């Protein structure tokens, strides 16, 4: 008796959803990359006349650190979403190829280098 049940077409139908996720993330990534702010952008009050210590550079640096983190983390999302879609198709193929298999090797299934 096999340890699984599957309708492989359902897996193939699910795969494009993850491709759509990737397509949805691309413009977001561009928006975050374009969201840089210069040091002048934070406050329009003259600190000399107002006699206040306003360290805009510190805040600009903090914001830029956050923004670049938010941009770089999305690179991972782009890769993973696309590969999950591919993996679903790969899993469906493996099930179809050997109808009597009991279990798939999960390490090879979740590895983009292995077919």
């Amino acid at each position, binding site marked *: 008796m*096999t340890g*699984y*049940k*599957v*309708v492989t*077409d*359902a*897996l193939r*139908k*699910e795969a*494009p*959803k993850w491709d759509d*996720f990737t397509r*949805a*993330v691309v413009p*977001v990534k561009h*928006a975050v990359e*374009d*969201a840089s*702010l*210069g040091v*002048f*952008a*934070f*406050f*329009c*009050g*003259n*600190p*000399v*006349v*107002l006699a*206040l210590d*306003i360290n805009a550079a*510190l805040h600009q640096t*903090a*914001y830029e*650190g*956050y923004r670049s*983190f*938010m941009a770089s*983390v*999305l690179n*991972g*999302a782009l890769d*993973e*979403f696309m*590969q*999950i879609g591919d*993996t679903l198709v790969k*899993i469906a193929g493996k099930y179809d190829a050997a109808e009597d298999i009991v*279990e*798939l090797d*999960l*390490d090879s*299934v*979740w*590895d*983009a*280098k292995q077919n």
Partner: protein
Amino acid sequence: MTTPMGQQPDYKGMFDQACQQIGDAIKTVVDKFNSFVKHVYDNRFFLGPALLVIKGAMEKLREGVDKLVQLVQYLMDHQLPVVSLIVQSFNWVYKVHNPISNLSGQVTDYRSENFEQWTGPTRNSYNRKATEQKAAIDDYVKKSEFVSSWLFNIVKTNVDYVAGLAGIAAKVAGGMVQVSGETVTVVMIPFAADQLAKLISTLVEEGIKTLVKYAQNFIGAIGNVRDIASQVGDATVFTNGKWPIAVAN
């Protein structure tokens, strides 16, 4: 899901309008000041010793006008960058938060009902990976909400500040027009100079006190630099600052 967007007024419109009002007012102030100076200069021989009295008043008046001009000049230099701050605050909502939050519910909204028929170890492993991805999506949404509300608080202090400066510039312009130093008779010039200097000086000094409060609000809004750093450092979902890996390479 609710977004911070729903509560945001038209900050750019408010900011631009205040800048426009300030530009108009400062032009009046500078024009009136210059014509008053010219009026005094043209009448310098008639004024004689009274010039000494006027000189003090004119210096005080110039000092007040200079401070206002410095505030306005600084604003004009920062006007476009602050507009970009406003634009980016909205972008974090419209172009980042909203499209990413739209993905969250779709993770478990399968495109075929038959997907639910899939059982076994591979399905379990898929579920675990999909759950991790959903957690990452949700955390990304939370982080974009955090940064947009941080920026909106900063935007608000800038908008309050320019509205305050617009009010002060309008009052000073009104004072300059009201006293109308450039048209007073020669005899009245010393009185007009004194009156105007006192009025403008008071308006500017009182105005700066108000603006300092807005600037302190800005410092309060922006003050949580550590908050923003701790959000980046929060590695519960993004281990080592990376999106969770589902598929090995």
